[in-house]
């Protein structure tokens, strides 16, 4: 077997430059430094942005099998199916339009009332539809790549929605694409409030796509199974009032300070093909300090308010 390998003709007897060992150790050290800097600071964000832009063709290529499969199945759909789908969509559009007409009036009324109350909370209106071009294949990270980037005014930390609720937020915006972290990522946390009782808390991702965890809710607080959790708008990153998750299980162990609560995201985390990027005007009063990361540091900032409705 060995004879088939090429002779190392051009291997110098006395190699110049660093030895293999020295290079390997240096590169490992460099990796550790990169990891540390990337974990602790945002200093590497510009480098990541440039590299993500440069590797955009790779993302497109990697998504090619699934996009072409979707295109093929799409173009082979029968006329009958399409007609049915079209009819159903028209019916839905009619219903939604009827609802929207009422919404417009309510929206206007809401705006007037808020002006009267001198409240700074505004309903955001501008959204952009983006397509998911890649799903992160690390099973331990819930991240997606979108086909909209800095060129479409996407910014780091921008909220991401689908038709049913909050999906996640943009992590890094590159020139023509951006990566986003989903709310189910184990490293993500989102400030929420119970739509029924108003109890505020933070919902953490668990790494499972159908489960969020609410670890800091006191046993006695007003939470029930089936309650809807909506974004509280605290922290200034997500607009307030969007559905996030539905409480699925509550276990109150009175020996423990906190109840064990799990919730199921209302957004269709694994099924969405198209998502909405929302332009959210920062709440000037609430987030006078700079908008922090939605990760643990932000959660820690929210902790003092926990459990107080």
């Amino acid at each position, binding site marked *: 077997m*060995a004879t088939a390998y090429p002779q190392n003709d051009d291997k110098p007897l006395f190699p110049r430059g660093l030895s*293999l060992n020295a290079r390997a150790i240096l*590169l490992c050290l460099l990796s550790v*430094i*990169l990891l540390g800097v990337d*974990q602790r600071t945002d200093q590497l964000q510009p480098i990541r942005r440039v590299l993500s832009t440069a590797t955009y063709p790779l993302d497109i290529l990697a998504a090619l099998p699934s996009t072409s499969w979707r295109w093929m199945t799409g173009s082979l759909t029968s006329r009958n199916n399409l007609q049915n789908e079209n009819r159903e969509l028209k019916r839905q559009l009619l219903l939604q339009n009827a609802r929207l007409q009422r919404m417009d009036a309510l929206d206007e009324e809401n705006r007037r009332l808020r002006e009267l109350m001198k409240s700074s909370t505004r309903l955001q209106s501008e959204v952009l539809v983006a397509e998911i071009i890649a799903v*992160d294949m690390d099973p331990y990270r819930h991240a997606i790549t979108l086909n909209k980037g800095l060129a479409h005014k996407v910014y780091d930390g921008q909220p991401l929605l689908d038709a049913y609720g909050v999906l996640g937020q943009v992590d890094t915006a590159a020139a023509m694409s951006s990566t986003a972290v989903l709310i189910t990522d184990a490293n993500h946390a989102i400030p929420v409030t119970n739509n029924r009782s108003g109890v505020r808390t933070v919902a953490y991702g668990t790494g499972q796509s159908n489960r969020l965890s609410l670890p800091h809710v006191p046993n006695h607080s007003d939470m029930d199974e089936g309650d809807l959790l909506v974004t509280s708008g605290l922290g200034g990153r997500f607009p307030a009032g969007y559905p996030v998750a539905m409480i699925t299980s509550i276990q109150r162990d009175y020996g423990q300070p906190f109840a064990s609560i799990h919730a199921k995201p209302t957004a269709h985390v694994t099924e969405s093909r198209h998502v909405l990027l929302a332009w959210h005007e920062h709440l000037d009063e609430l987030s006078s300090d700079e908008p922090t990361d939605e990760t643990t540091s932000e959660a820690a900032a929210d902790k003092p308010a926990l459990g107080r409705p």
Partner: protein
Amino acid sequence: MKHHQEARQWPLWASLFVALLLTLTPAPDWYGTLFPEVNLRPVWLLPVSFYWAIALPQRFSVGYAWLFGLLLDVTSGGLLGRHTIGLVLAVWIAQRFYLQFRQFPLGQQAIVVGLLALMQQLSLLWIDGATGVLSQPMHYFTPVITTTLLWPLLFPLLRKLRTSLHVR
């Protein structure tokens, strides 16, 4: 000196890019229904890097392994440097002992590749544990098995690529 043919290098880099794409490409829908909650996807970049490190140690070395690890970090969206340590260590070991590894029978080589894959997955496990993103530890270890099983198929393929295209 037997340079009958012009030395080519592009198949080496092409195979590494294909390995990168195979790592990145989303699994088809049927995979999720067939194997729910099991991560059977092999780590592709490590065995391909291992092959080139033992076949052409003067061409492919730790520096390039580090670069491809960084590419994987950027495209997969993790921390920069997450994949580089495991890859650099694997290529380093491959290059230290490339003469021995070339003599190994295929099964024994597969075990070496499996151990190197285990080392890389452990490094990922430690990094993710230290940065607090660890969720399901089993997902780190199942790819080691599939990567080991992949080697007896991958090795002849890469060997064919190298000899028929005269990669030096």
